[in-house]
């Protein structure tokens, strides 16, 4: 029984951490880590994963159960002492030290409450399940449905005012959907952008202004903060929602003062390897 507990300790701690480190390194080596986190922090994720794996391999040198082996004198705080809450006489900053030294020094294992044991077993199984799925399932990107459910109507201002300033100077060649969405939402002088050539890749979502919206998820740090950015497109044919496309065309100022993309061509493509913008 104790042996099972020790193995559980290793599995739930070092084991889960090692699997996640292996998954991280595996993704990094195959160039797919960007499916989950911003490439800017790859170096940190990779180096800490190596630390975890070195520690995991080294932890085999520690005999099983040694981390719970309290040696010769192990003053586990007595149960009675814990449950009697008062004891106001203890000096405040050194409460723990004092308490430890007061306690008699002999091994003492008190049984944990069955509900607590059950809770940690259930939690352990659930955590193991998630981590094992992480290991055995291929990586995936977020679906178009999720992107739409995250669209709350407000345009995220990823690049801030810089994008608009930059756009006004005419250098928009490096712009993705995120930057253009910012420009479209914040440009005070739409005519300045009229006629800019554009080639953008994203997936199709139902449009409000144009015929459809070209949408891309923009990630700041990791995929959980991914937010949709979209630009309205006017053009035929209208592909299915969720279909990845490359739109080539020009920016056009509409008569009511908004900007949209006048598509010369809408080419359907498979999902790109880097589905997010950063």
């Amino acid at each position, binding site marked *: 029984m104790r042996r099972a507990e020790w193995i559980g*300790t290793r599995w739930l701690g070092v084991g889960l951490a090692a699997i*996640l480190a292996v998954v991280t390194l595996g993704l990094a080596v195959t160039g797919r880590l960007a499916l989950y986190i911003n490439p800017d922090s790859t170096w940190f994720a990779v180096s800490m994963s190596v630390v975890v794996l070195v520690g995991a391999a*080294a932890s085999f040198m520690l005999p099983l159960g*040694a981390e719970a082996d309290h040696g010769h*004198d192990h003053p586990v705080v007595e149960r009675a002492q814990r449950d009697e809450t008062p004891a*106001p006489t203890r000096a405040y900053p050194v409460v723990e030290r004092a308490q430890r030294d007061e306690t008699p020094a002999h091994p003492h294992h008190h049984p944990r409450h069955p509900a607590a044991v059950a809770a940690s077993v259930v939690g352990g199984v659930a*955590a193991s399940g998630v981590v094992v799925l992480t290991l055995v399932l291929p990586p995936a990107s977020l679906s178009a449905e999720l992107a739409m*459910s995250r669209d709350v109507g407000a345009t995220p201002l990823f690049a801030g005012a810089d994008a608009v300033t930059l756009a006004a100077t005419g250098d928009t060649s490096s712009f993705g959907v995120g930057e253009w969405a910012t420009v479209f939402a914040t440009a005070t002088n739409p005519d300045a952008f009229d006629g800019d050539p554009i080639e953008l890749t994203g997936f199709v979502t139902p449009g409000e202004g144009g015929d459809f919206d070209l949408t891309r998820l923009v990630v*700041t*740090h990791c995929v959980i903060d991914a937010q949709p950015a979209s630009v309205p497109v006017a053009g035929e044919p209208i592909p299915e929602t969720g279909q990845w496309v490359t739109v080539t065309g020009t920016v056009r100022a509409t008569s009511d003062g908004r900007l949209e993309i006048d598509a010369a061509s809408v080419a359907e493509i498979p999902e790109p390897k880097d589905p997010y913008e950063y």
Partner: protein
Amino acid sequence: MTRTDLRPVAAPSRPARSLVALSIGAAVVAALFVIDAVAPTLFPASLPTRAQDGLTLAISVLIESMPFVALGVVLSIVVQVWVPPGVIERWMPRRAWARRAVLSLLGMVVPVCECGNVPFARGLLMRGFSVPETMTFLIAAPIVNPIVIITTHQAFGFSDGILIARLVGGYLIANLIGWLYSRHPSPNGLLTERFRDTCALVVHEPGGRGRRSLAQFVIELRAVMPALVIGSALAGAVQVLIPREALVAIGSNPALSIVAMMALAMVVAICSNVDSFFALSFASTFTPGAIVAFLLVGPLVDVKMLALMRTTFTTRTLAGIVVVVLLSAFAIGTVVNLLA
């Protein structure tokens, strides 16, 4: 190494045995790499879209926060095993409130974000820092740290006092919680029984520093990893289950918007060093006070942090912390709305 020599059993073949154990460890790690490479081809993705999205989100939080947790564990080992007794304590003021005030600025020099703070804080507790002091550090560090200050400034500048309100608010909430719990008759009663056992163990861990470091590595990962995984899974699940419109719909009402943004902060579980960019996209629809409340609540008591903190503090204590944080954030948000 003198301490190892004092051990009663000195097996002569010890280095050899360690080498064998290390090789086994390396072999297991190598086997994991093989599984990682081969398994996905055997199990083609066939999860329903929602489940897959939830899993993708959970994995992204895991991959993002795992390095910080690992760093936190390493720092915790350093604090617990390698820094000689008295070195940190010598620099600390004597008075309790002053100690807490200093500890709440420790985040400025310790480079871990909120997930890594939990193992680090456990290291502080094991070292003998009191419970309220450690709590103060734990609550302040995710907000009062250089990276968060820089990213919040990038996102909001000084407009509407959002940056100032966030920093001062975080600092005050942390010290308020530290003060409240310092009045608790038995600070140790705030900790889970399991953690108290662990404390008692590690302090008396036998063996040299290397061995104690390894033991601490095993113990800390065991404590933090399941909580991290479950917290991330919850964060992922909540994202695909609760429609964001439901929260945003209550948007621009001064009081309700604060409540809505606090609820959003608790469920989205975004790292404190990027949450200001996330909040920026709500700035046009929500009041500045609501944004401040979001930026205060998220780093302190989101679902992932609660799962992590539960490794150390009792449910009752966490409920207390959540109530204090929510009330304070609401109050600060309201003040910002009145002033802005």
